[in-house]
């Protein structure tokens, strides 16, 4: 095999030298094909040794913007474009670690939900829209703040949410339905991670109500391991806002599970929504 291996390896190296060459691997069979694959994978794996370079914050946004314009031109649509109703406005109850329906706040929170539901790829324009949404929320909240203590509390929460999602260095981690056959394909969420202040904020929508004996648990991915971040019970059709002021700085992802015991220290069920990696807002 050695001479044959050398010959195969030389062809792999020729391909490395001249990437445009036709891939001869398809004509190979059995062990030779496996060897070809192995050396090809090895050649591609070696750059992993390089220290990764943090891409500029706007690079992903640029890629997604161009991808979207591709989609517009070709007729291909993104998931959100196919179903704009999924990010349609609807109310978000605000309350730390306990969702609460606030009818008076419903329309106002809808605009924020719209902003928060979008993927971080369009964060630059997203931020501008968020500011408009928040300004609108503030106007509405200001109008009704004297009426109701709950509304005042909600305003405080809103201020907190605004301070989190608009702080410099805040990263957004979108969560999406997990697995080949997602349990809740329409549900969406974004976790805003504020590493500087060790805070996070979850905004989720279209989650199905859970049974009496269970709650949703948010897990933060810290160094590749899930850490419980709080639990909640959503109401039907009512998006959720959940926040906490204790978050490991190395959090780089999050997911939601349904748990019977909200104090559980490890997930017992499959993720309902899952997100990996987080992008800076600015």
């Amino acid at each position, binding site marked *: 095999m050695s001479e044959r291996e050398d010959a195969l390896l030389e062809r792999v190296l020729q391909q490395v030298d001249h990437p445009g060459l036709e891939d001869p691997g398809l004509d190979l069979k059995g062990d030779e094909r496996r060897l070809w694959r192995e050396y090809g994978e090895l050649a591609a794996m070696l750059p992993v040794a390089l220290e990764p370079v943090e*891409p500029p914050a706007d690079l992903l946004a640029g890629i997604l913007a161009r991808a979207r314009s591709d989609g517009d031109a070709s007729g291909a649509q993104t998931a959100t474009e196919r179903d704009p109703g999924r990010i349609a406005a609807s109310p978000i109850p605000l309350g730390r670690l306990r969702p609460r329906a606030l009818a008076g706040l419903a329309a106002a929170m809808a605009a924020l939900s719209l902003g928060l539901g979008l993927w971080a790829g369009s964060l630059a324009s997203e931020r501008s829209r968020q500011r408009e949404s928040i300004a609108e929320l503030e106007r509405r909240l200001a109008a009704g703040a004297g009426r109701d203590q709950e509304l005042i509390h909600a305003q405080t929460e809103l201020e907190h949410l605004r301070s989190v999602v608009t702080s410099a260095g805040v990263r957004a981690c979108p969560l999406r339905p997990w697995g080949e056959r997602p349990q809740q394909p329409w549900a969406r969420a974004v976790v805003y991670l504020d590493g500087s202040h060790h805070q996070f904020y979850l905004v989720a929508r279209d989650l199905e109500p859970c049974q009496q004996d269970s709650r949703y648990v948010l897990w933060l991915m810290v160094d590749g391991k899930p850490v419980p971040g709080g639990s909640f019970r959503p109401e039907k059709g009512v998006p959720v806002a959940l926040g906490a002021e204790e978050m490991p700085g190395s959090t780089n992802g999050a997911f939601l599970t349904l748990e019977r015991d909200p104090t559980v220290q*490890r997930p017992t069920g499959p993720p309902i929504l899952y997100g990996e990696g987080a*992008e800076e807002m600015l």
Partner: protein
Amino acid sequence: MQNLDPTHVAPVAPLRDADLVTRVADGDEIALATLYSRHAGTLLALGLRILGAAGEAEDVVQETFLQVWRQAARYDPTRSSVNSWLVLIARSRAIDRLRSRRVAERIVLAAEGGAGEVDTSPGADRNVFFAERRARIRQALAALPAEQREVIELAFFRGLTQSEIALETSTPLGTVKTRTLLAMKKLRTALQNDLRELL
């Protein structure tokens, strides 16, 4: 808020790269962004090593992920892993740019960049997804004799052809090829477990 205790929890398997590519083929931007979060740092590092210019390296990363977006449906997992596919695209685009430059310009950049050696400094490892694999590859590279490591780094991190390596190192072409073959065989043996995961 509950106490955070990472010692009592178990990891959850993330979606595989190949699954993400399938979703990208369906127009899923989040899947594209997840692939980006896993691979962009390495591809940008590769682009920087080959091209020596941040702007051009970023263009390479952008072109790579746009190609993934446009051609995800054509990805064939029986031919290569997603990592291999991405590196192939990025490398090809970087080399296209590199070869469009004058040779003299590249030599100047190389001299200024000191690009030939792998940064093995501890810490600051931002891409957790590949951190363990990165450590194993570095270990395998470090175990190679210096002259073999040099040809591998010039070929795979700087985009030089075997002939260009021969010129740059003032070494006969046959010797460069022999060193490369020997190094690749050793690396294949050392990284057998990682390769199995990809196949």
